[in-house]
């Protein structure tokens, strides 16, 4: 167990370390002069451009740039944005909570709907319910997030007037969270179904039934518990999908999170902000997957004792 934890933590640290290198190299991969591209919209003299280049450390050899970047990173300094000239970390920290709220709410919706649908489909395997649930799931996987968002917006906000079109309060959270949650519920439903079908076929479930345990007890105490293990192992990936999906959905509903920020930054070619976003986003995903993997180890004795 200790070995497993150390391995996972090390792997996470290596990932974050490689991200810092990738992020430093990013600006050098830009064809042409990144400083000129960033400042294309502003009237700037060659002297000003040169001053920015020095301020960003781009006049230094690349290994020194990397060293500077990392040493600033340890002081919590991710540089300053080009647009608005604010500390990148401050911007990210103000825009992150709405994204986290959206992603977790959607995850809860996806888990509740996806697990129940998948479980039901597996339990009623081969019946109309199973086919219906799986047709729904395939449709859910195929409908683009942003179109589902627009459809929900059209019906619930514009036609029925039940929910606001955009905003930052909790009522405005419902539509984006539903959009993201429903789309991912479809993925989870398919996963749950195949995991549960594997479990239902196993000896211990048959034994539990044969020894006369009540059906609900077999379902919940034996089958569901075992079936949850592979599903939990997918949760890290699910959370990553949710965060990725949030980037698009936030833009449909004008939800003011990091996703919208990232798109604005790409449009403005605000490289310090883009670099900060990638590092921040990757770190969040790596840390969340780490926590989920460790939880998974606690859940699955095969990992705990290996």
């Amino acid at each position, binding site marked *: 167990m200790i070995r497993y934890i150390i391995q996972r933590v090390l792997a996470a640290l290596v990932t974050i370390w490689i991200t810092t290198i990738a992020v430093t190299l990013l600006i050098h991969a830009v064809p042409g002069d990144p400083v000129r591209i960033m400042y294309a919209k502003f009237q700037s003299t060659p002297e000003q451009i040169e001053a920015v280049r020095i301020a960003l450390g781009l006049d230094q050899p690349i290994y020194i740039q990397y060293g500077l970047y990392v040493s600033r990173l340890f002081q919590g300094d991710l540089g300053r944005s080009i647009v608005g000239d604010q500390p990148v970390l401050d911007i990210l920290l103000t825009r992150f909570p709405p994204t986290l709220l959206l992603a977790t709410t959607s995850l809860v919706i996806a888990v509740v709907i996806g697990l129940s649908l998948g479980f039901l489909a597996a339990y009623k395997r081969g019946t109309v319910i199973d086919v219906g649930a799986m047709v729904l799931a395939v449709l859910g996987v195929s409908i683009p997030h942003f179109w589902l968002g627009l459809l929900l917006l*059209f019906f619930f906000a514009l036609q029925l007037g039940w929910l606001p079109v955009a905003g930052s309060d909790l009522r405005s959270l419902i539509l984006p969270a539903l959009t993201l949650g429903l789309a991912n519920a479809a993925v989870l439903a398919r996963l749950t179904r195949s995991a549960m079908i594997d479990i239902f076929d196993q000896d211990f479930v048959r034994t539990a039934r044969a020894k006369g345990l009540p059906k609900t007890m077999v379902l919940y105490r034996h089958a569901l518990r075992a079936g949850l293990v592979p599903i939990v192992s997918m949760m890290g990936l699910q959370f990553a999908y949710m965060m990725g999906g949030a980037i698009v959905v936030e833009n449909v509903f004008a939800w003011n999170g990091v996703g919208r920020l990232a798109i604005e930054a*790409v449009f403005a070619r605000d490289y310090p902000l883009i670099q900060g976003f990638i590092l921040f986003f990757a770190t969040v995903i790596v840390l969340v997957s780490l926590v989920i993997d460790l939880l998974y180890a606690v859940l699955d004795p095969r990992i705990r004792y290996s």
Partner: protein
Amino acid sequence: MASIAPTTIAENVHGELAGFWLRLVKSPTGLIGLLIVLTLIATALFAVWIAPFDPLQMGAGPRLQPPSAQYWFGTDDFGRDLFSRVVYGARLTLQIGVIAVGISLTSGLLLGLVAGYAGGWTERVLMRLVDVLFSFTEIVIALACLAILGIGLTNAMIAIGIASIPFYARVTHSVVLVEKGKPYFEAGIAAGAGHVRMIFLHLLPNVVPTLIVVGTLGISTAVLAAAGLSFLGLGAQPPEPEWGFMLSSSRDLISRAPWMMIFPGSAIAITVLGFNLLGDGIREVLDPRQVMR
């Protein structure tokens, strides 16, 4: 011996291919998927004859007309015929799917083959790198690529292609690991086959079936991603008749002209559904154990 072996293999493959198509159209998933994809291809090929108007022609009709006998899908805010735009959009969509998957599939395939075949440090370093990229999520890699390359539909295709490389590398790698344990592989090595021969003549043919399934499903992911980027304004630019971009220009007019949102959106969803069903159908045919479930 040498003269007999190739013909028998060819005959086998030929027989298997016929059986493959037969089994594919017998499964409802495969048949529906195949029909949708074929319709899409036909629409793209014959767009010139199918579309009643030039997709870029402004004022082909009055602005914001609801669907009618003349304008099947209605018109947009520039008076362009939406049906014609959706029809021409099929071309862009197919192009996006094929190019993006082409990039990710070939690169991922090579990476996975080399890593899996070489083993040792090469494998560890390559796959660790792939894992790192994988954990970034595809959309972040795509955004990083677009930040480097600049926005536009071609760059979006490249970005999506690059973003999915880790996925294909992982899939290929896992198949190679399984194949390496089989007797034919050891026999090949024992017979003194060179690296290139082992990789391309022995491993590759056994990796292909899995990659056909994954690649077909991958086209749907690529189409979704490209439409998403265009929706965000990072992909197709006006006046291109790209479905995602059409959806994004419908946003401000949703209550006045909902058809501007409904038709391009349905086109994306049906296309993605088609490739998903086709991929599932092919998987059922190639791996019958899955169907038994």
